[in-house]
């Protein structure tokens, strides 16, 4: 590139540079530092969540309440969105509608240009990750500074987030020290000379680096955890206070929010403010909860914009099975419990939404045209651990299977595939006991060939994927069916 970038460049190709899950995983599995970091971090949060959930005597009822409130929102989304728009407008908020990510990015950029700013401070936001807002702003000469500590680590590290809640979960503190030392000075206040990897020292460096930006910025961009339809109140739940800074200091605040983030009434928040922190950070209460309803003269931003983003959400809503994924409140409990995520990390999912929620949401939001999105529903063993921790009871495994069906149907729509042929054959074999018995002649023959010797590595395509790491017990020369006939006759 010839032009000087304003902010640290993301890795080459960013999300689009990542291959489909099975291939991406190969590289991730070999990163032993990352695996250690992930095992430690997910294990810790997982255990905390379990304790915090067990403290609430009516936790299971709360989960059901969360599920039902979100289902109601989905059923009457048009109504609640208009109600929210009217309430926000009445409170002095400029409400914008964005059909897709491109429109959302253009709206934010236009506002920034109208305000003649060349930088914005950002509160961690998933939807702007989804729309790749930072790079859009960069191309328009506007620097977007991430102010969440982990997002800062990711941005300064020329990296991509790998977790919804803790985007730098794949980094340990000595890696963070190296990133701060090398990068901070190029984009603002440098890290102190000879800084150690002691967390208080690292956070102090981040604090000083960010403080400069908070005090200077004229515009902030946020996401939003909830919008209360009846009052038009925006809610952000956070841990570090950087959000509070962004929400109160700059003159202009633009909040980019997915249309599914609505809750009908203020009282509905009580359910989610209890479910969310316990499910995500494993805390009883998150340190900072910001709620704001329109503009207050002499207090906080004097110009408020809310960009309501669809970007595929109405497509998800149209799918009777898949729509449950829109209940997601981005807590990350499904990531932390997932044995596949724990070993792969977030990047392998090729999206800011990794883990089980990414495996069901991305193919629905983005469609299943790419190999990446076609592979995601298969990035799970269907172990069901995610189903059990989800605070809004998303039936992950059911949706995964439905999405697999969607992918299989698409792949076989033009011409038959080998996999489909195998499945059809299996359907025939399993359609009748006689068919299975005849196929078992083959396994019995194999049993005679191998005798009692376990089968080692076999350089046969597909078979080698199993035998690369596992021996196989030889098949028996007598099936159960045969034994039954011999021992019990025709009973």
């Amino acid at each position, binding site marked *: 590139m010839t032009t000087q970038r304003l902010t640290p460049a993301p890795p080459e190709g960013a999300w689009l540079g990542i291959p489909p899950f099975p291939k991406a995983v190969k590289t991730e599995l070999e990163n032993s530092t990352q695996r250690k970091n992930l095992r430690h971090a997910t294990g810790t949060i997982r255990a905390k969540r379990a304790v915090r959930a067990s403290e609430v005597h009516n936790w299971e009822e709360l989960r059901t309440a969360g599920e039902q409130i979100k289902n109601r929102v989905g059923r009457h989304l048009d109504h609640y969105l208009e109600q929210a728009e009217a309430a926000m407008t009445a409170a002095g908020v400029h409400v914008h509608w964005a059909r897709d990510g491109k429109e959302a990015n253009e709206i934010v950029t236009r506002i920034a240009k109208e305000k003649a700013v060349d930088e914005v401070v950002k509160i961690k936001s998933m939807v702007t990750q989804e729309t790749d807002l930072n790079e859009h702003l960069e191309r328009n000469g506007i620097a977007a500074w991430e102010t969440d500590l982990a997002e800062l680590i990711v941005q300064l590290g020329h990296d991509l987030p790998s977790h919804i809640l803790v985007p730098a979960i794949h980094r340990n503190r000595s890696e963070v020290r190296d990133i701060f030392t090398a990068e901070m000075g190029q984009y603002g206040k440098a890290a102190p000379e000879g800084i150690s990897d002691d967390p208080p020292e690292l956070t102090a460096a981040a604090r000083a680096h960010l403080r400069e930006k908070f005090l200077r910025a004229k515009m902030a961009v946020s996401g939003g955890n909830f919008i209360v339809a009846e009052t038009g109140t925006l809610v952000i739940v956070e841990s570090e206070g950087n959000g509070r800074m962004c929400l109160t200091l700059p003159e202009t605040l633009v909040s980019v929010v997915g249309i599914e983030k609505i809750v009908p009434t203020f009282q509905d928040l009580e359910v989610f403010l209890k479910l969310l922190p316990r499910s995500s950070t494993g805390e009883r209460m998150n340190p900072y909860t910001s709620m704001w309803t329109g503009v207050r003269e002499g207090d906080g931003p004097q110009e408020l914009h809310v960009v309501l983003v669809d970007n595929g959400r109405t497509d998800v809503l149209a799918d009777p099975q898949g729509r449950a994924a829109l209940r997601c409140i981005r807590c990350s409990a499904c990531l932390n419990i997932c044995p*596949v995520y724990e070993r792969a990390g977030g990047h392998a999912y090729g999206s800011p939404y990794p883990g089980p929620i990414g495996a069901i949401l991305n193919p629905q939001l983005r469609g299943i045209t790419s190999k990446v999105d076609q592979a995601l529903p298969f990035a799970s063993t*269907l172990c069901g651990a995610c189903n059990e921790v989800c605070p809004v009871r998303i039936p992950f495994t059911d949706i995964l299977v439905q999405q697999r069906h969607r992918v299989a149907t698409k792949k076989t729509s033009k011409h038959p595939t080998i996999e489909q042929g195998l499945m059809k054959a299996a359907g025939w074999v399993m359609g009748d006991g006689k068919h299975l018995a005849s196929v078992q002649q083959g396994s019995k023959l194999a049993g005679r060939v191998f005798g009692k010797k376990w089968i080692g590595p076999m350089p046969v395509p597909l078979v080698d994927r199993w035998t690369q790491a596992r021996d196989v017990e030889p098949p028996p020369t007598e099936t159960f069916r045969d034994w039954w006939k011999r021992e*019990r006759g025709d009973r």
Partner: protein
Amino acid sequence: MTQSTITKTERAPGAGIRVALFATCITDTMKPSVPIATVKLLERLGCTVVFPKSQTCCGQIMANTGYFKETVSTVKNFVRSFGDEEYVVAPSGSCVASVRHQHEMIAEHAGDKELAADASSTAKRTYDISEFLVDVLGVTDVGAWFPHKVAYHPSCHGKRFIHLGDRPLQLLQAVGGLQLVDLPGADQCCGFGGTFSLKNSDMSVAMASDKARNVIDSGAEYVVGGDHACLMNIAGVLHRQRSGVKTIHLAEILASTQEEGAR
């Protein structure tokens, strides 16, 4: 009633109960010792066991790979084989989970309302062996003898989809001579996942290796589970590593007595 007849009735909680064994395609074909043990155990407890020969499979390998249409014949065959039975018992939490959780959906998807109703009704009468023993027969001590150090791996579908809970542990704790040891990370998936093990083979191996390491660390001689597919995955790694630790199905332990050993 004399003392001995009381003991005899206590030993035969399954007297008068007819059980249709669903052997499952994988153990029927690859591991007959598991359904054989299930038969011997149920007969020892007084049940009359039948084996409907038309039976095959639960169909989850097709359904979970996304091929719903290709699963219909299997669901039909399951209903044909077991639809009239009062108790269908399988030595597999996963296959029972598929019957209960997927058969009706597959039939609905094919637009076959009659099959959906039959599948739903048959599913309600289908049990995993540990459920059948604890809930239907009301026994935890089945008179088994297995003098070994054993770690229990709770397979995911049994644990999370049909909520077996501590039933398998209750049964194991009552086994004579058996020493149950803790399995670190027990509730983590072994990485099998059906076609996952082929489509995401590297991840599957990573998970299976961690499971095998935990099994070895537990100090157990045997790792016991309720699903042969998971055990086959774990055994594959344990054998490749020449660890000397064996896998065994819950039914095999419960079937073994002081007179007749397992396998």
